């Protein structure tokens, strides 16, 4: 049996918690667990002790694909500069409520 060794690190999971229904799931931290059930239970005990959690996601850390720091310029700066994507870019007559 290949996996019957001790001392090997358990897989890492990233934990996302939702404080109230309707809120987004936010990253709370990470933990080690051998499977999803254990990850959910540990996440409940580690990040949900104070009762401000209504929903949990656990995701194997290796399943997350992340941008790298060197990408930051090409990936994000063009978007930041697109002022026309922000409502303040558009002028409307004074005194008119448009929403």
């Amino acid at each position: 049996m290949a996996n019957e060794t001790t001392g090997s690190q358990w897989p890492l999971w990233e934990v996302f918690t939702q404080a109230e229904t309707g809120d987004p799931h936010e990253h709370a931290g990470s933990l080690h667990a051998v499977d999803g059930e254990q990850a959910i239970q540990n996440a409940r005990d580690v990040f949900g002790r104070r009762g401000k959690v209504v929903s949990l996601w656990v995701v194997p850390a290796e399943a997350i694909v992340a941008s790298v720091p060197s990408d930051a310029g090409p990936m994000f700066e063009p978007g930041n500069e697109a002022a026309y994507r922000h409502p303040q870019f558009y002028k409307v007559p004074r005194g008119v409520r448009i929403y």
Partner: protein
Amino acid sequence: MTMTPTVQSTPEDATKLAAFEARIAAGEHIEPKDWMPERYRRQLIRMMSQHAHSECVGMLPEGNWITRAPSLRRKMTLLAKVQDEAGHGHYIYCATETLGVSRDELLDELHAGKAKYSSIFNYPTLTWADIGVIGWFVDGAAIVNQTVLAKASYGPYARAMIRICKEENFHKRQGYEICAVMSQGTDAQKAMLQDAVNRWWWPSLMMFGPPDSASSNSDELLRWKVKRYTNDELRQRFVNLTVPQAQAINVALPDPDLAYDPTSGSWRFGAIDWNEFWAVVKGHGPLNRERVAARKAAHDDGAWVRAAAEAHAAKRAARSTAAA
């Protein structure tokens, strides 16, 4: 501790280092995948692992009184507090792992007696009053430290500290409440409280680390915003906060030199016995051996449990592959 020189002074490294220091100076956070000087990484691993170990070893002195807590409310709140310490150790180990070191490696060092943790936990909890005084002094000192660490430049550490500070708010209040109630209690309770204060005061002041004049790591840690204030500054802040709290519950702090200095607005305190500090750091405190042995025993005795969980997960994975 000897460290290899920071930079081999290639032009590329010098450029990266300059950019790194500029980011820190601008108040940016450093994230795991960002470039960082090797010494920054090592200093963080050193500090964060010591912090995580302290939370875990810190479970033992207080855990010593859970089964004997004098009321159901005290039992529950102490259990919740010690549980938080396990949780906080967990947060910080995870944050440390983002620097490329595994929790298992860190635990191996702790169990081999090679890792440091806060020396305060090498002192024994002799009476119930110790539980109150630890909450008041030791958690009080920790809060002074951690509030500052929550602004540290390394993102994962700062985030863990913010979470910990929020959760630890109640620890100090719990401890101080225990002391306040005992200070109004029977003569035996008052004596117990004063005795605990006498024993914990000086070790608590030592928690902030050696004086600035003898702290080898401080300059660089400050420049890289791993620390934000010096050991002596934080120690003074703690003393200033604590003296009025002691007066409010009629407890004497065991320092004949303690006196208010109106010019600085600070409480001046007497000389700390740094010989004791260094002796305990080097392993000669009352309980260094016992504390490490207890954590090691828990880990060793649990090896078969961890192996079972791994084996079960492997079996399940194999079965689902076979079924597919």
